[in-house]
């Protein structure tokens, strides 16, 4: 099995190279086949590895010594264990479906750009695989940087538009801020342990003083905050919707943003040592969940609603990690990948049908014309709202249970965020698919169901959203604790203790059903309408305008930095450095002009200088020792 491991990242890398270098001669279908085929191959290898790990457990494969200096060694090694195989399956599986979707969605691009798109997408999958397969923090960091780069490239895919480029830059810079924290954490780990390999670090972790563990974990969390869009570094994610919809689905819903979760789940040993960090993670996660949910309530762009929903769900995942339920966080990653990718791809299908329109105030009643899209989308909405026995219900319930065991106060806030989630998702569903059509006449004509390449991934993901949760069905309902037990060697399992567990589960089930019925009725009344202005006043406007956080960042950070850069450019660069460089040239010119006047052509002058020189030479020669001593004293 060890021989197969390197194939998993190798296939996407080959796809990247072929599509990138040869995109002009290849045809679109060839590019699609290569781009999607390599991900399928990686998925197949991942399945083989999964069965192998189920029997034999994890393994570490060492390839070569990446950094080999006196003091520490960083090998280029892959560690495939239960945690990474789950992520591998998610990445390659959902990734393959999205590649398939993209072959049809991006069909109108020219071959050149089509190939560019697929090469970037393959590069992204490669980096993400590197991230989850690395055996030490440095390899993870390489993948981390790689996915940040691909996110930038793909958000700015339609580079002719300036605002898209700005959004891409914003994403990259905010990621970078997080990366500083991550790097500092790596340095600290190297200083404390002398190595960055997971096995060695976690073995020696108990010897660490609490302050060091707190510092390292907080710094790692800073990295996660940047990558996974938590407070305060989340504003790039809604702007990142400027990229093509499949990109939003893959990167900003299913995979890249979950890199932070992976990192913290991997480092659970370190986090268990420091209660302060766990508290910080939980509270920031919860705050983000609530804040993003409030903003999503009043957004009018279909992708922005989904973006804020992603931020909110990521907050839930961090909440799970923070309260110690690491496996639950990973479980929610998996289910979220299913239904969020489904929702994004469905949104893409809707946008395609509406001819590029993304404003939901202009949609409505689409369920009649787009049956498959609307049914899969509705399944996705049910999953994310926690409709009983969908995958989202099971994972969200686990999170809520774990939070309740940790702190009842946080529990009620989490419930509030879950209710808001249901409200805004139902609002979205009603506004888009029910009620009367609010768009223009041509858009009504253009409405048609999408081609099968777009629909097949939707159907597959809808099925997974429905049944994917059953691998971790709580025992109360008759399931086996499969995922928890599977991950147990790497990530401590969540335990359900006590007799009160069953009661709580039933309360949750009942509460969910009642809540969802109320929300359904309310949103149907308010939003399944034919006229929807979409303009808000007062408090609603604050929410619709995202609590003005973007404007805050702009004034505090962006504008001062821009003016500083402008200052440096005009004053320091132009007057300072340029003046020095040009001034040197001008000075040389001037002095050469002056010295040229020595050549007067007058013989008398020349003889004068000769005599003076002889005088000086004589003096120097005569007083050699004195001059040498003097010079030595100076220098």
């Amino acid at each position, binding site marked *: 099995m060890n021989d197969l491991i390197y194939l998993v990242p190798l296939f996407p890398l080959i796809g990247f190279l072929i599509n990138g270098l040869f995109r002009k001669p290849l045809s679109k279908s060839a590019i699609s086949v290569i781009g999607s085929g390599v991900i399928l191959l990686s998925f197949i290898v991942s399945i083989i590895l999964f069965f192998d790990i189920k029997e034999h457990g994890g393994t570490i494969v060492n390839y070569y010594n990446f950094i080999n200096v006196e003091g520490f060694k960083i090998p280029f090694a892959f560690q495939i264990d239960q945690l990474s195989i789950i992520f591998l399956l998610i990445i390659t599986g959902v990734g393959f479906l999205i590649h398939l979707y993209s072959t049809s969605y991006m069909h109108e691009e020219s071959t050149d750009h089509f190939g560019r798109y697929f090469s970037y997408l393959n590069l992204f999958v490669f980096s993400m695989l590197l991230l989850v397969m690395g055996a030490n923090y440095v390899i993870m960091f390489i993948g981390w940087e790689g996915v940040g780069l691909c996110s930038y490239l793909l958000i700015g895919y339609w580079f002719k538009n300036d605002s898209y480029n700005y959004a891409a830059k914003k994403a990259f810079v905010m990621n970078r801020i997080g990366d500083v924290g991550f790097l500092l954490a790596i340095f600290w780990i190297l200083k404390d342990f002398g190595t960055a390999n997971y096995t060695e670090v976690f073995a020696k972790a108990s010897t660490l003083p609490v302050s060091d563990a707190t510092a390292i974990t907080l710094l790692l969390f800073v990295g996660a905050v940047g990558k996974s869009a938590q407070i305060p570094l989340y504003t790039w994610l809604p702007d990142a919707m400027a990229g093509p919809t499949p990109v939003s689905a893959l990167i900003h819903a299913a995979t890249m943003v979950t890199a932070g979760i992976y990192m913290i789940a991997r480092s659970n040993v370190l986090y268990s040592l420091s209660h302060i960090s766990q508290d910080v993670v939980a509270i920031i996660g919860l705050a983000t969940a609530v804040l993003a949910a409030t903003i999503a309530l009043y957004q009018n762009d279909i992708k922005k609603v989904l973006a804020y929903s992603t931020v909110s769900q990521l907050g839930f995942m961090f909440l799970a990690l923070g309260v110690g339920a690491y496996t639950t966080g990973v479980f929610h990653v998996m289910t979220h990948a299913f239904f969020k990718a489904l929702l994004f791809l469905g949104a893409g299908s809707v946008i395609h049908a509406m001819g590029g329109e993304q404003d939901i105030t202009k949609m409505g009643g689409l369920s009649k014309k787009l049956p498959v899209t609307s049914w899969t989308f509705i399944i996705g909405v049910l999953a994310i709202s926690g409709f009983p026995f969908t995958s989202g219900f099971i994972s969200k319930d686990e999170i809520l249970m774990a939070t309740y065991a940790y702190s009842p106060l946080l529990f009620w806030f989490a419930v509030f965020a879950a209710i808001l989630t249901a409200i805004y998702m139902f609002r979205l569903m009603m506004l888009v698919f029910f009620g009367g059509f609010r768009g223009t006449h041509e858009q009504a004509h253009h409405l048609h169901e999408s081609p099968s390449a777009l629909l097949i991934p939707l159907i597959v993901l809808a099925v997974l959203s429905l049944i994917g949760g059953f691998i971790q069905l709580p025992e109360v309902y008759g399931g086996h604790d499969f995922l928890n037990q599977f991950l147990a060697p790497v990530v401590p399992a969540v335990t359900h203790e006590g007799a009160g567990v069953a009661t709580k589960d039933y309360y949750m089930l009942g509460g969910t059903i009642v809540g969802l019925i109320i929300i359904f009725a309310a949103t149907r009344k308010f939003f399944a309408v034919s006229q929807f202005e979409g303009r808000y006043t007062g408090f609603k406007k604050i929410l619709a305008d995202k609590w003005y956080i973007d404007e805050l960042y702009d004034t505090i950070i962006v504008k001062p930095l821009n003016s500083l850069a402008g200052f440096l450019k005009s004053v320091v660069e132009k007057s300072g450095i340029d003046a020095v460089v040009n001034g040197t040239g001008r000075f040389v010119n001037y002095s050469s002009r002056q010295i040229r006047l020595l050549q007067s052509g007058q013989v*008398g002058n020349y003889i*004068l200088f000769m*005599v*003076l020189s002889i*005088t000086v030479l*004589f003096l120097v020669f*005569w007083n050699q020792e004195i001059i040498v001593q003097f010079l030595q004293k100076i220098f």
Partner: protein
Amino acid sequence: MSIDEILFWFLSALALFSAIMVLLSKNPVHSVLWLIVVFFAISGHYLLLNAQFLAIVNIIVYAGAIMVLFLFVIMLINLNTETERQQNIWMKFFGVISGGLLLWIFISASRSAYDVANKTAMLKEGDVGLIQNLGKVLFNEYALPFEISSILFLSAMVGAVVIGKKD
């Protein structure tokens, strides 16, 4: 003060005075004449040092031939009155300063020089300057440079004739 010393100082003063008059004369012919006086004074010094051969040769070659040549050229270009434009006063100033500096350095160097600390130049005695002794050394050891100097003269003559041709 013995007669030697008086003679030495007199000849030195004469030489220096005449040299300065060479510089300061407006008329070039006067400069030539003053230079001839300098040569005579120097020949006097040679005689004082008993370098008889050199004294005579100095008079014959320098005062007799070279200065006459100078006079010929001055006559040829008809340079009897001074038509020299006034030179830049700064150049004169700097020239004098440089000369003075050079003199100062020479004197101070020689004062602290080790090898000449207590030596004297013997006056009026010694066979060194006698023509027999000089001739013996010249034709024994320095015969080759002697012959080569004749070639030097030949080339100088050829050169002078070639340069001076009017064509």
